[in-house]
């Protein structure tokens, strides 16, 4: 029951919203208290798996391989985001409709927690959908035109993703004859080459989770939704929720089973996403948009890592896989952790920065904090980021030789991109803080709220806490577990490692400098994303218009209109006149008489004839 309690606790909190008296409690401290049980569970450990046969389609809730880890991340980030949101609301900068916000916040949280521990397809799907759909309410919370547009795109893509994911799950469920992720992955592991159901499942799941995870081409909603959502929501969106797509892959796909083709597809997709997002994002003006692109870019790297894990045929049976046994997998998880914390702290930092007018020193402090988090992302030495890079490199090393060399060569370049994004981000934040322009797209009322806002302590605490975690967690872990590969990863390469970590950052900074030198204050250009999106929308509108004006849209289209038929017959001029005329004729004696005589004669004739 503990499992259900943990997942359901936010929903219970949510129920408090229904009553006027308890409402403020739920929409206030409830936001950050709601994830406490989950945090506790992730830290303490859950015990026996919870099997609930009556719930959904036989629900199994447990940590599994990754659950505890994701639950930890989720609960931490949501606690921080809840704290931030509460504090923002307290200080009046939370925007309007805090009860609605709280509702969607809590429901999304519940779904997110559930996804982390769901061990079977059905419940995973349920929680996944709960999370995805409720997040819509968060994204469009501010109700600016931009937010609504972002919400629309998000909703459409989410629905498509959900449906495709559902299809993938349907297939897996039948193929494995079980709804457990473990069985599903085992079934997929025995895949043969060529286009078959396994391939279908792969592609469906790739797209289905890919929309959530921001695979290149499916990431269109991300740069729109993250800036539009309230800060706390952006933090969890970018910090945790997009990682759930990753979790799905990890759970569903047979890792280390040597599915090289699919692995390479994912690796390439990831790499392309990482490069593209860096290129597309750095010139943006809204810092949150840059962060969103950075998320896409970082997710690209994680996807690449998943691709590696898929492609590599491990020496161990996959069910013997344990956390920490393989540097690639563990590195990926650390990546998730580091990126989640760092990105959340970056978003919260932006929110903090925008929340009020800061004095110059305070602004500097914020900026330093943001820069530190940025550095972690960029993989500066002795941070989690460096560790991640190391792990990725080792993962690439396990590939077949051609691929391995290529990826190892390319990997540092992604760090350049990340640095570029981060540096541009910092610049934009600094600029916005110093120039102090109101963000044009905020709702006027929201902007007014901002005007009168004070900064809450909770916002600072939330941000600071996350920052500390980002900076401190990996070195701490290194200190705590010197013997693990963590330690080896950080320590083994020495000065060369330091150099490897530093030169991409330097390169990135140089690129930033160059860009700003030549293009400072230039207008924000539409990126490829916007163009694609605009084209799609235009065509959709055209299709819509065509459809509405087409004959297929007429009410009678597609029906066999019996009434119209009958009317056509009964109202026809023939029917109006002829039967009457005939009937009138039939009323005459002579007509009837002739018919009668004729009838008798015919009757006699046939009787006579057949009697012969």
């Amino acid at each position, binding site marked *: 029951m503990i499992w259900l309690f943990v997942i359901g606790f936010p929903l219970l909190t949510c129920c408090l919203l229904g009553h006027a008296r308890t409402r403020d409690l739920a929409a206030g401290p409830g936001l950050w208290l709601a994830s406490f049980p989950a945090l506790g569970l992730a830290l303490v450990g859950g015990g026996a798996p919870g099997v609930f046969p009556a719930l959904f389609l036989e629900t199994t809730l447990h940590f599994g391989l990754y659950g505890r880890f994701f639950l930890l991340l989720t609960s931490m980030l949501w606690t921080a985001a809840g704290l931030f949101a509460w504090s923002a609301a307290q200080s009046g900068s939370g925007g309007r409709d805090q009860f609605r916000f709280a509702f969607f916040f809590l429901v999304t949280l519940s779904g997110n927690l559930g996804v982390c521990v769901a061990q079977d397809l059905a419940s995973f799907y349920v929680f996944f959908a709960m999370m995805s759909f409720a997040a819509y309410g968060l994204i469009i919370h501010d109700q600016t035109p931009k937010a609504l547009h972002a919400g629309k795109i998000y909703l459409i893509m989410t629905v498509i993703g959900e449906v495709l994911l559902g299809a993938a799950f349907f297939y897996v469920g039948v193929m494995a004859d079980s709804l457990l992720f473990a069985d599903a992955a085992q079934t997929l592991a025995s895949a043969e080459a060529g286009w078959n159901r396994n391939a279908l499942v792969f592609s469906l799941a790739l797209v289905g989770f890919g929309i959530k995870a921001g695979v290149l081409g499916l990431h269109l909603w991300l740069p729109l939704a993250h800036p539009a959502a309230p800060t706390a929501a952006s933090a969890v969106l970018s910090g945790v929720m997009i990682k759930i797509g990753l979790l799905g892959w990890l759970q569903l796909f047979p890792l280390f089973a040597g599915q090289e083709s699919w692995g390479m597809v994912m690796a390439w997709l990831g790499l392309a996403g990482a490069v593209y997002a860096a290129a597309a994002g750095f010139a943006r003006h809204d810092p949150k948009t840059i962060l969103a692109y950075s998320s896409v870019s970082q997710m690209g790297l994680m996807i690449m890592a998943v691709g590696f894990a898929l492609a590599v045929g491990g020496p161990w049976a996959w069910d013997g896989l344990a956390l920490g046994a393989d540097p690639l997998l563990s590195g990926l998880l650390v990546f998730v952790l580091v990126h989640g914390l760092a990105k959340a702290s970056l978003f919260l930092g932006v929110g903090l920065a925008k929340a009020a007018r800061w004095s110059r020193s305070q602004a500097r402090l914020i900026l330093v904090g943001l820069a530190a988090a940025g550095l972690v992302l960029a993989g500066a030495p002795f941070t989690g980021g460096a560790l991640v890079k190391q792990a990725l490199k080792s993962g690439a090393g396990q590939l077949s030789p051609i691929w391995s060399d290529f990826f190892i060569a390319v990997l540092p370049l992604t760090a350049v991109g990340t640095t570029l994004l981060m540096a541009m981000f910092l610049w934009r934040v600094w600029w916005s803080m110093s120039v102090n322009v109101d963000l044009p797209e905020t709702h006027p009322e929201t902007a007014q709220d901002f005007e009168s806002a004070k900064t809450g302590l909770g916002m600072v605490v939330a941000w600071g806490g996350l920052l500390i975690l980002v900076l401190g967690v990996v070195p701490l872990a290194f200190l705590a577990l010197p013997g693990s590969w963590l330690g080896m990863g950080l320590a083994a390469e020495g000065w060369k490692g330091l150099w490897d970590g530093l030169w991409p950052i330097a390169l990135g900074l140089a690129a930033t400098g160059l860009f700003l030198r030549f293009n400072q204050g230039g207008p924000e250009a539409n990126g490829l994303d916007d163009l694609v999106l605009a084209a799609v929308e235009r065509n959709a509108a055209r299709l819509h218009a065509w459809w509405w004006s087409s004959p297929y849209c007429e009410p009678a289209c597609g029906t066999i209109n019996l009434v119209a038929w009958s009317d056509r017959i009964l109202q026809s001029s023939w029917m109006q006149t002829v039967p009457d005329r005939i009937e009138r004729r039939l009323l005459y004696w002579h007509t009837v008489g002739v018919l009668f005589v004729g009838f008798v004669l015919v009757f006699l004739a*046939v009787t006579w004839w057949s009697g012969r």
Partner: protein
Amino acid sequence: MTLAAWMILVPFMGGVACLLLRGRAVAWVGLAASAATAWTCLPLLRHVWHSGPVRIDLGGWAAPLGIGLYLDGLGAMFLLLTAIVGLLVGVYALAFFGRGREYARMEPYFWPVWLVLWGGLNGVYLSVDVFNVYVLLEMVGLGAVGLTVLSGTNDSLVAGLRYLLATMFGSLIYLLGVALLYAQTGHLDIFLLADAVDGSLPVLVAFGLMTGGLLIKAALLPFHFWLPPAHAGAPAPVSAILSGMVTKASFFLLLRIWFVVFPDVTAPVAGQLLGVLGAAAVLWGSLQAVRQTRLKLLVAYSTVGQLGYLFFLFALLTPAGGEAWSEGWASMAWTGTVFHVFSHGLAKAALFMAAGCLVLAMGTDELAAMRDIAGRLPVVTFTLGVAGVSLMGLPPSVGFVAKWMLLKASLASGQWWWAVVIAMGGLLTAAYVFKILSFTFVPVGGHDANARPKAGPKAGRNVDQGANEHQGPKNSGVPELRPVPALMTLAALTLAALCVLFGFRAEEVIALLLRDMGLEPPFDAVLIGNIGGDRP
């Protein structure tokens, strides 16, 4: 079993008694005679049920000279139908003619004529003598015409005279056939005739003439010219009598002629010919009914259509001559037809009686005037609905049983085309029944008289007319309905309810009907009663 004779005598005596009386006593005596006749029917029915067909020779004179009476299951069914409808029509008429001066004037004429007619009907069902049948048919015909012209309006007089000429003509043609037959065989008793007929020309001509004459009286399609005006123009109880019972007498006789007297000379093609006419009647009559705008005319044309179903029997049973009788579907066809007679008799009488209630209440039988009848006269509308259901052949009703049997028979015998006609006829029937019903639902308030119906369908057009009319001067006051006596409504409702109830008790009817005919039981079901009473 002199009871059989009483079946004829009781109504006759009642009629004579009615002639001698004055005032409301006529009605009460008439009703008492009706009840007595219906009551007499019961022991007779029980007798036939228990010990098979009855044959009596009046006065002890045997066949060639005396007048013989014969009652088998088939005749018993017709007697029963007449008794039920007759009694309820009597009840209805008691209330109907009690209303106002115009109706009260007819009362002293109605009862004697009706009772004599009833006696004639019973006689037709009981008689075995083809000439006596002629006399009785004439009696029925004269009575029917007398009832038709009861209201004395110009239209009804013209319709009545036309009816009289038609029925006289039919009878004379029939008599011509009888004369030929007698000239050839020297017999009048149907059973003696059955043994005596051969394939000679005079016999065939006699057969053709008798069939033709009876068809005119039975109003099969091209010969229905007298029916709609007569049925529509008569007062309600009379229409019920004419439509529910009188047309059935000629049909009954046709059955006797075809399947008792001439079974050996009937040609399959001739049977098909009747079937085709029946099919045409079904389609044409129903189509005409759909096109009517007056309630009583609609119901009258519906009679033309419904009578058509009866003639499928001739097509179904003649193909293999005598052999067809041993097939399972022969008995299905029989029961289907008899059930249809029942269904139509009960339902049509109920419809006419309900229509009478409406005419009484509204003062007109225009369909367009029937606004919000469903709200103001719910029981009458309900009666219309239930009777309509039976006509359509929808469950649960006796009409459904009839259609079920007819369909099965036509499919089982391989003559599937009748099945198609039956299905289409059902649709057309639904069209006119629901045409009536939909008018009853138009609200009086006309709260959206301005709203145009979307399509321009017929019902829409009619509704539109109603709406336009409504916008006119009538808008201020909805015409008040005159009160309808509860007894009338109740009688109609009872008939309608019987339509439903008979649908559930088919087994006994089948048993009664079939065992006297030497037909195979159509199903494995165990038939009730002792099968195989002695046949004469």
